[in-house]
Structure formats: structure tokens, C-alpha cells
């Protein structure tokens, strides 16, 4: 990063003053712009991004449905039919989606169940983002966390209920934290880019867990396929609405953790340090903050949160680990962090939204036979629009907000 030729290094540009004056001009125009929550930034753009995502998703549905395509093919003969067929298809799909996620108590319960691990995982990525780190490794951290958690879950069964659950959650946190520590440490000590390291650790974690699943310690007795022993009853997160519904105390833990992370980020000195390191590591160095230490701490916390995602899924829903335990939560988490604007409150909202999509998609497929994968498409589109707010502004023709701060994470791999 100290390369003098590095164009990103913020040396005073050669055309110093025009730019500076332009900036000053903008500040004047902005008037009393505050650091507080600009509604346009926080609500409008994500909402529009979601709408745009749903719209393009609808296009994909229409153009991949054979029947609707046929009516489009005969557009000349019967133009109304093509449109009404398309509308019916999309309407049915989306209404099945929302009915499947919000239409009944069970549906709502399932939505919350889907959202719970997403909250943790989204917070994990968002927290790292704030410290200037792109944690693509939530997937691996989640798995390792689930492993340590399940171990605590079936081993410490002598503990009384509440203590056991807590211990298993903490074990999950520690497992994920360990997996997060590695990229943090390597970044701090050698400058290894965390994106590469976390991608690699995802695979290493997955393979390692696959290995452990077959080991004597973990494998369920009487089974030859890789599946762990189930956690003890005392380690299960208690259901919130009775045994009939899967929604469990994990959701409350997630909300509490989100609150704690918010406080940590915006009201504590630790958060101040994270944000300083995240936006300007050079200034952090100058101000006497330990940049490396902050990277390590941020990755440990981030990994821990991802580990909690695994633990909450394990202790609240699945009760044992098996291949495919984490089905892409780590990647969803990136989407969530972006959609939630790396703000814990935003992440919770985004996770609930994704929960709606995820749990509703099953109902949608059952009712309309539109494959569930459409929601992945929608999610990806939403992130595109979130990551390129300018695109959304162009489409919807809204003014840029004055004090947007763009996180830039891509630096060279090996710096």
C-alpha cells in the first residue's frame, strides 16, 4: 500500500485545488448534512433495489415458462394474452411466495427460522466490512462453528438446560472465531488478502468437517453415512411457540446480538477503532490504533458471529451436522450485509426479507412449480442494484445523496 505509484494512495492530486474546491463547494451545497440516517440512503435505495430485483426476477420467470413463451410467440395474433398470461404467472408466483412465507402461523414461523442464521451470518460479514475486511469465509466459519457447537451439544449433557445451550452457543462462537482468526492473523502479520484466504478456508473447513463427520468422535452410532450424533435435549434452543412450530429462542438471541453489535460499532471505542481502520487504515496507524490487532479482532468477532449462525441452526433446527449443513449461508450473508448497508439494523431487516424469500419459495414451488432457485436470482439482482446504487438512481431517476461513502475493499491480492 505504500507504493508511491499506487494511484489509490490518497496523495494530494496534482490538480489539487480544483478538486478541493469542488469538495468545499459540495459541502456548502449540502448544508448541514449529517452523519445520521439519510432516509434516501437507508430506505429508498434498498427498497428500489428490491423492487428492481423482483421485477427482473419476474422477467426471468416469464421468459422461462414454456406456456407463457408460447403466448409471447403468438404476440401478433393475440397481444393481450401474452401480457395477461405473464401477469398471471408472476402474480401467482409472488402471491404464493408471500403466502408461503407470511400466510399462516407456520409460514411465519418458518420465515423466522430461515432468517435466524441469516441474521448472524449477515452481521458477521457486516462487522468485517466495517473494519475494511471482506469476509467471504462465513460459510467455512459457520461449519466449523457448527462442529464445535455440536461437540459441546452432545458431550456436555451433564449440564442443566440453560447452561448447556449457552455453552453450546459459546462453543459455536469459539469455533467460528478460530476459523476467522486465521485470515485475520495472516492479514495482520503478512498482508495476505483476506478474500483469498477466506475462500480457501471455506474449502479447507468443508473438507475438514467432512473428515470429522466420519470420525469416531462425531459419527452417530449405527450409521455409516457422515452424520454427527444429535445434540442432547438440554442443548436445544427452546421453541418459542410450542413444539408444533420450529421457531425457537435462537431468533431472540440473534436480535440481542444484533443490538449488541450495533452498540459495539457505534457507541464503543472498539467500534470507533473498527470504523477508522475500515475507512482509513493509515489514519488509524497514525492515531496509534493497532491496525493488525483490529483486523484480528474484527475477523475473530466476525468468524464468531458466523459460528453462531451455525450454532443457532444446529441447536434450534437441525440438531446434528451432516454434509450440506450450510447451504450457501455464507454467500447470502454477503448479500445481506450489502442490502443492510452494513448496519446491524439493516442486516436484521434484510435477513427477515431473505427469510421471507427463502421460506416462501418452497411454497411457491409447491404451488406453481417454479423452482426455488429463482430466489437466488432475485437475491443476486438485489445485490447488483445495491452494490451499484448509481444504477438504481439512474433507473428511478433520483438524486445522488451528498455524503455517500463508498466502501472500497478490493485492493491487490497480496498487499
Amino acid at each position: 500500500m505504500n507504493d508511491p505509484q499506487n494511484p489509490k494512495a490518497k496523495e494530494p492530486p496534482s490538480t489539487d485545488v480544483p478538486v478541493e474546491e469542488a469538495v468545499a463547494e459540495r459541502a456548502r451545497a449540502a448544508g448541514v448534512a449529517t452523519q445520521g440516517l439519510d432516509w434516501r440512503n437507508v430506505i429508498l435505495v434498498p427498497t428500489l433495489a428490491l423492487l428492481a430485483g423482483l421485477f427482473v426476477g419476474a422477467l426471468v420467470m416469464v421468459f422461462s415458462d414454456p406456456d407463457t413463451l408460447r403466448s409471447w410467440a403468438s404476440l401478433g395474433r393475440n397481444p393481450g394474452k401474452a401480457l395477461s398470461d405473464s401477469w398471471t404467472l408472476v402474480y401467482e408466483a409472488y402471491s404464493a411466495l408471500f403466502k408461503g412465507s407470511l400466510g399462516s402461523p407456520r409460514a411465519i414461523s418458518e420465515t423466522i427460522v430461515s432468517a435466524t442464521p441469516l441474521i448472524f451470518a449477515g452481521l458477521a460479514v457486516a462487522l468485517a466490512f466495517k473494519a475494511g475486511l471482506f469476509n467471504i469465509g462465513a460459510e467455512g466459519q459457520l461449519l466449523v462453528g457448527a462442529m464445535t457447537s455440536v461437540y459441546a451439544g452432545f458431550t456436555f449433557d451433564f449440564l442443566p438446560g440453560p447452561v448447556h445451550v449457552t455453552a453450546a452457543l459459546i462453543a459455536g462462537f469459539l469455533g467460528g472465531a478460530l476459523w476467522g482468526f486465521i485470515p485475520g492473523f495472516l492479514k495482520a502479520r503478512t498482508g495476505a488478502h483476506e478474500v483469498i484466504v477466506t475462500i480457501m478456508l471455506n474449502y479447507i473447513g468443508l473438507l475438514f468437517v467432512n473428515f470429522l463427520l466420519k470420525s469416531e468422535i462425531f459419527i452417530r452410532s449405527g450409521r455409516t453415512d457422515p452424520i454427527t450424533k444429535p445434540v442432547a435435549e438440554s442443548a436445544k434452543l427452546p421453541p418459542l411457540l410450542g413444539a408444533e412450530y420450529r421457531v425457537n429462542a435462537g431468533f431472540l438471541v440473534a436480535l440481542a446480538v444484533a443490538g449488541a453489535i450495533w452498540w459495539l460499532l457505534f457507541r464503543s471505542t472498539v467500534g470507533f477503532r473498527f470504523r477508522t481502520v475500515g475507512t482509513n487504515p493509515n489514519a488509524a496507524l497514525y492515531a496509534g490504533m493497532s491496525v493488525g490487532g483490529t483486523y484480528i479482532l474484527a475477523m475473530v468477532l466476525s468468524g464468531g458471529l458466523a459460528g453462531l449462525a451455525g450454532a443457532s441452526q444446529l441447536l434450534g433446527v437441525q440438531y446434528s451436522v451432516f454434509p450440506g449443513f450450510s447451504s450457501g449461508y455464507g454467500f447470502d450473508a454477503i448479500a445481506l450485509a450489502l442490502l443492510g448497508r452494513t448496519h446491524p439494523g439493516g442486516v436484521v431487516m434484510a435477513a427477515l426479507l431473505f427469510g421471507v424469500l427463502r421460506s416462501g419459495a418452497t411454497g411457491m414451488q409447491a404451488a406453481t412449480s417454479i423452482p426455488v432457485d429463482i430466489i437466488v436470482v432475485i437475491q443476486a439482482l438485489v445485490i447488483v442494484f445495491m452494490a451499484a446504487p448509481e444504477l438504481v438512481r439512474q433507473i428511478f431517476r433520483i438524486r445522488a445523496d451528498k455524503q455517500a461513502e463508498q466502501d472500497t475493499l478490493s485492493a491487490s491480492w497480496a498487499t
Partner: protein
Amino acid sequence: MRNRGMKPWLIAMFLVLAMFAAACAEESTDGEDTGDDTGTEEEALPGEGMTACQVTDTGGIDDKSFNQTAYAGLEQAQEELGVEAKFLESSTPNDFEPNINAFIEQGCDIIITVGFLLGDATAAAAEANPDQKFAIVDVDFFDFEKGEDVVYDNAKELTFQTDQAAFLAGYVAAGMSETGKIGTYGGINIPPVSIFMNGWLAGANYWNETKGAAVEVLGWDGKDGLFTGDFEDQDKGRNTTESLLDEGADVILPVAGPVGLGSAAALQDAGEGSLVWVDTDGCVSVEEYCDLFLTSVMKNMNIAVYDAIASVVDGSFEGGLYSGTLENGGVGIAPFNEFDSQIDDTIKTEVEELQQKIISGEIVVADYL
């Protein structure tokens, strides 16, 4: 500037859409005559108004093998009994439970869960919903902690003694091998997979014992062996098969659903060796590779699934174990198809005899492991 910037993106998007649209539209004309003929007969069928629903494991409904065979049972029921067939694909194990629940909400008359890995989820659902009928393929509920068998009144367990049929296939393969090595690999080391491999190994061993030969089985030793790790990565199946070929195996049994298609590709490129397909007759499900299939170890899930649905329709459904065997036709080996002429009549007769001996209990597969 503002609008010009939009263009490449939009164009990209629409090109993608247009491409798929073109591909689909073109095919839809071909598909029209086959796809649209439901509801032409107005005669009321016994299952009219009922629904049969299948939850797949992670391999997908069109896997040419496992899920597809089971679904064939549903389609047969749709055609002959008039029930409505539905399916939900599970892309990850986390989908099992929501998928089952979605069908419960939909009011399916019977939910067929396909695959060993759905065992826990199905057991839980069957216990929680005593009025909902289930059929599960490949699982015999068993409580390992208490060491006792479990039976639910509302869940039919459809299991298959595929080792019996695989035994026959292994015997033929051993007889046909020129290199003295035959191979096998699986998707995941779970009982419904390893049972094939056991039968295969036992069949070869039986050949060695009766003929005084020394045919070696690569990839399975009765406990552990060669596994690709999932039922999806066909390229890995190809890789694995190439390794088996390299080490001299010339008849290979892939027990990994669609991953086996990678084996077919490998064999075709290598121009040597033959395959034994599983679950269904390969010459029917993957016609294009028919010249590679020595035979197939058939696991007639479609029949069992159809029977289960039929029993719901006629009200005779009851929970418990169904075990497909050579005797009841639940398992079997497929015709030798294109290899028919190459196989000695003696071997063919011996296979017939072996089949009878297994049915009669004279030969027990497990004895030859």
C-alpha cells in the same frame, strides 16, 4: 451520458433472456404433442382429485437414475389412477423439512420422500402428523439408541435388497472381465449405496470361488472404498472412472445416480470397458450410452412407489416395511441388451440358477463378502 451508460447492461440482460427464450420456444413446439394431452380422457379415474407428492433428495428430479425412477411411479399413477403428481426438489439437506412441510400444508394424500438422507426428516414428520400418509424410499426406520425397529402406521418404508441383484451383476462382470479386475465407486457411503457394492463384491467373490479365479474388485472392500462425495459432480465421476480404468478395471459399477453419467463419458472417450447401470435399465433411461451397459441392477422403485400410491387410492394403505427382493420383483437385473451376443450361454444359465438359489435362500449374499 446518463442514458447511454444503461445500455450495455440492459443489452446484456436482454440478450441472456432472449437466448433462453429462443432455446425454450423452439423446443416448446416439439414438446407440444407430448406435453398437453392430459385431460383428454374424461372418464373418471379412481384417484381423481388426489395428489401424490414427491420430495427428492439433492440429486434432482431428472437424474436419470434415483429420483427419476421413483418419479416414474408417480407419473404412472397420474396416468393410470388419475392422481395429480407433484414434486419438490431439495437443493440442500436443509430443504428436506420445509419441503415436506410445504406438501403437508398443500394437503397431499401421500408424500413420497426419496432417499436415505430424508430418513430423519420423514420420521419426524410422520410422528408429528399421524394423519398424513408417507412413503419413504430406502429407509427402514430403526432406533439405534434402543436398538429396536420402528414402525409408523402412516409411513411405508420401501427398501430394496439390491445386493441380491448386484450379486448377479457382479458374477456376470467377473465372468466378462478380461483384465481380471472389476471396479465400483459410490456417491456417499450410506447403506443404500454400499448395499449395491456389497452385492457386486460378493458376486465376484462367488465367481472366484466357484471358478477358481482371482478377479479383483477395485473401489470397495466390504467396508470402505471409492466415493465421490456427492450425487452431483459428474466430472468427478469421470475422473474416478478414469482412475479405475487406468488401474485395469474393465467393468465398472457406479452407484452415484447421475454422477454415473460421468463414467459413461469416460468410457466412451477411452473406448474400452463397460458399465453396469443402477436403479433402472440404463438402456431405457440413458439410451445414448446403451452400447456401454453390460446390464443394470434394477431397483424397481417405480413399482413400489406406484403400489404405495395405489394402496392410498384404494384405501388399503398401511405403514411398515416393504422389502423389494428378487423374489417379489422389487429388484432384478436388466437384459444384457447389446452385450447379449457376447455373453456365454453358460453364464446366462448360471445367472438364472443363481437367481433361483438366492430366492430359495440357498445362497445368502452376505456370506460371500
